[in-house]
């Protein structure tokens, strides 16, 4: 029972991270049609920023987070303007460019951090919340969960309640029709990648005190984000968020009660099965021919 409760809390925390990773990927793919392979590296940049500012130079954690978001966002905007925009007609070119960015960001991280073991950030909130007799949740993890859910809420509000959000969703549904309606595609693309990259940077910043920080940490991020995106439906943000929490729960429980390796294999298999049975994902919409 204790393990069960702990696992539910863990699932929520992991789900929050998975969702932050995946919404950016979905936004960028939806609006620009580009698979951003460097998305995991944006997360890594967020984590390195916190390591560099907070752990190395004693900048307060709560200031390091917005800086991480801004840096990731700037990188995203540069990618949009100079790589994705000139290649808008050729999604493959955009994908390949993002692989180029992936290499460059990894090397920059390597140069900033130097060789050596994985970087660590001591948790700024090191209290532990005890609920009942045996449920112990570190404050740091609760904080991450809260911020993740809050930012997903803000994103939801932005997309559904603001004019810009409507425009963004319209572009994601049908780019040409939106352009004909007078929507500025360049502007919407910049907003999409800005928001997506910011979410990735935020995720990285929140993860920094919780896990090993290495230049290659983006690899796991992108694989998980792919699984979540595919299972949730490539064009669907709500699907991605739902899939993120479902997949996190699945992975956490299989890991806690069985084995993490089996959890990963099952994750890949689920993805392949979803691709075969319903390539548009559990909540995706079929795009007409």
């Amino acid at each position, binding site marked *: 029972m204790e393990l069960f409760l702990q696992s539910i809390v863990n699932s929520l925390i992991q789900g929050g991270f998975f969702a932050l990773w995946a919404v950016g990927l979905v936004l960028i793919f939806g609006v620009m049609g580009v698979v951003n392979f460097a998305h995991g590296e944006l997360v890594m940049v967020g984590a390195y920023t916190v390591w560099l500012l907070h752990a190395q130079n004693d900048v307060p954690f709560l200031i390091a987070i917005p800086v991480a978001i801004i840096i990731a966002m700037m990188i995203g905007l540069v990618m949009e303007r100079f790589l994705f925009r000139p290649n808008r007609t050729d999604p493959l070119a955009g994908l390949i460019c993002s692989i180029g960015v992936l290499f460059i960001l*990894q090397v920059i991280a390597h140069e900033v951090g130097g060789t050596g073991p994985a970087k660590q950030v001591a948790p700024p909130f090191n209290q532990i919340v005890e609920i009942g007799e045996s449920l112990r949740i570190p404050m740091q993890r609760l904080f991450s969960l809260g911020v993740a859910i809050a930012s997903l809420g803000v994103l939801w509000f932005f997309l559904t309640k603001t004019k810009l959000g409507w425009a963004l969703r319209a572009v994601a549904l049908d780019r040409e029709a939106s352009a004909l309606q007078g929507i500025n595609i360049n502007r919407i693309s910049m907003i999409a990648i800005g928001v997506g990259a910011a979410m990735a940077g935020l995720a990285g910043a929140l993860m920094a005190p919780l896990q090993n920080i290495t230049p290659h940490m983006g690899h796991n991020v992108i694989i998980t984000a792919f699984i979540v995106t595919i299972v949730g439906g490539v064009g669907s943000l709500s699907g991605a968020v739902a899939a993120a929490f479902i997949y996190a729960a699945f992975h956490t429980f299989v890991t806690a009660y069985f084995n993490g390796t089996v959890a990963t294999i099952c994750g890949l298999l689920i993805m392949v099965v979803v691709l075969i049975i319903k390539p548009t994902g559990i909540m995706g919409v079929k795009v007409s021919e």
Partner: protein
Amino acid sequence: MSIKNLIICIVILAGLVALPHFLAYNFQDLLIFLAVNVLVVVSYRLVTLTGEWSLIHVVMMGVGAYASAMLSKMAGFPFWISMPIAGLTAATIAALLCFPLFRMTQFYFLIGSFAAGEAIRLVWIYFIDPFGGSSGINNLPPPELGDIDFYEPIPYFYMTLIIVTISLFILYRIEKSRVGLTLNAVHWKAPLAESVGVDTWKYRSLALIVGSFFVGIAGALKVHYLGVVTPHQFGIGVMVFVLIWVIVGGYASFVGPIIGVVVLTVFDQGLRASGIVDPAVQPAVYGAVLIASILFMPEGLEGIGKRFFSKSSGENA
């Protein structure tokens, strides 16, 4: 093949036969890997002819490599038998994968092929018996033929050169044949091709199976020189390099990917030997080259060469 092209091919082959004798010992190994990589990119091009970009190609190379390694290590098969079986094994696995994979196209196919490839790699890692887990299979025997010592790079290079040349010739024949024409047709307008009776599923599968056969052979060639096969040799990082070679070289023509892999390998070694760039920084140089080639030469190096030649020949005329 025109007489001119034939002469060019013969000159290049003659050059390749002479080349290792002018190289330092450690560069002779690189020549073997380069020849193998040429087969990898050219067979990959056959897969991409139908317009689908697969991320499973390098894993298929691994399927061939593991097949050959296991046959020679556990069943004592000579290389000359295990190598073709390696190709057939990769082709068989590819044929099985066609059923799920070709239900998808474009982005979904890309991700689906990636997931299927990762799943195969995980199988190698987690089933220690018989795949050897993360450390793979060691001490693979080199080929045996008379008194030739295939531990030495030059004989191994010549053998690789012969097998790769035959494979390239076959792949070239396929591309220039009616089959190649149909594959192209499937790429440009699948519904139109179907409207005149082309079974697009069959042709997509054919491309994947034939491409996998040759990359399986390439895998066997590679690991019998290395002496060891591990799951890490066939990771997504290696696949990314195949993509880079093909795209930087130019995937519109048969020679483009070959130019890509040769130029970038020479560039890579030059960079390393020059000592200008710290090895740790090299991936960033690769990344920059990749981006630059997409932005400034969409047809790849091959396109630049073609433009240069057509321009100069135009001036001569």
